[in-house]
């Protein structure tokens, strides 16, 4: 890899190595803070593709072993799902639960 040549690290959000390294220099020392600062790992794939690359950059820049890092927070929904569907179907499921529990 050419020194200095910038490349995309997070494919979904198109965040480059320089952007991530800048964030680390400015004090982001966890995967979560890098994510919040740069959006790297926040895209459709939820960081599955770039997380390891970012962890590597973090280790190289800070010298902190990966063992000391925490994986980034990960919350449902784990897969793309539209909020409309979630709201509509969630309501249906809750009604079904209520009916089963005695129609309260």
């Amino acid at each position, binding site marked *: 890899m050419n020194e200095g040549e910038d490349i995309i690290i997070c494919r979904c959000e198109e965040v480059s*190595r320089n952007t991530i390294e800048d964030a680390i220099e400015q004090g982001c020392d966890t995967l979560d803070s890098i994510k919040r600062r740069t959006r790297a790992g926040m895209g459709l794939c939820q960081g599955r593709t770039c997380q390891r690359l970012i962890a590597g950059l973090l280790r190289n820049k800070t010298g902190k072993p990966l063992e000391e890092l925490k994986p980034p927070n990960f919350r449902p929904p784990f897969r793309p799902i539209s909020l409309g569907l979630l709201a509509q179907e969630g309501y249906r499921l809750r009604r079904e639960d209520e009916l089963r529990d005695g129609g309260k």
Partner: protein
Amino acid sequence: METELAVIGSGPGGLSAAIEAAKFGVKVAVVDENPKPGGQLFKQIHKFFGSEKHKAGVRGIDIGNQLLQQCQDFNVDLFLNTEAWAIFDNGKALGLKRGTDKIEKLSTKKLVLATGAMENSLAFPGWTLPGVLGAGGIQTLMNLHRVLPGQRVLIVGTGNVGLIVSYQLIQAGAEVVAVIDILPKIGGWGVHASKIRRLGTPILTFHTVKEATGNGEVKGAVIAKVGPGYKIIQGTERELKVDTIGIAVGLTPMAELAWSAGCQLAHVPELGGWVPVHNERMETTLKDIYVVGDVCGIGEASTAMEEGQISGIAAAESLGYLKRGKAEELLEERRKGLDTLRGGPFATHTKAGKGKLMKRYYKS
């Protein structure tokens, strides 16, 4: 919907867990987001290693069919095209999305996470161009869907995946221009390397990919020799005319479901990264959630199947379908199998990593 044992992932580990538990009468549901079950088994068209007991000599694709047949024989429910998008109540309920527009809740007593692994990335200039793929992705496309991504391929990485995919590309009619590795030695098994070397495919160690070239899609790859510190030696660059670059630089366990459910994770490099802490029964730190296969340490399909069986037996016992003594007997047999499969020098890392995980389990 309700079940006694829910399994997420229908690869060799997940199916083995399901079959083993169902054998003893447990009601089992397997969930997979793919339209076809089998995980990565159906792209493994080569004969597997192992002993007769571990289905050695049988092609992965045929092992997949055998497992599916057993699922049918033991009435395992398979939910395909179904995404598990949330885990609630310490594993006692799953949020499922079936097809494009149906959301369901699946209540369960026990949960096995068999979510597998994903391929590691390697970032270099041009790596986002169409034509750069994961080597496993190439394997899926050609062996499962019978489509070649291109005609002239560079494979980056000489682990077993890189070597096997190279051989299978040639079987499918493509040309593998070179297989390169930045490390001084071939990572995978010698027999796999020999298979492509005698076809004339060059394996270049101490080499890296500097750049994928092409405008709009891959037209070439610039590779170069590396020296001390794995830095490129200026002047050794050369461009290979390729239309496809396959990245085969290892796998990372997909442990995020376990993590978000609340299972403790540990970073164990020997196992591929962050993995759920578990014990010899494949129980995580949440006692109703089990993990099996690549999600808890990169291994082989054969070890995933043994781990799957262990979790199935353990779950059947704790649900009351199996007596303690009988269960222990069966578990001991599988553990011996695992020990054998991890008995060689290529698996010392895995063995050490698993040791660390168990220690962590009993410390927590």
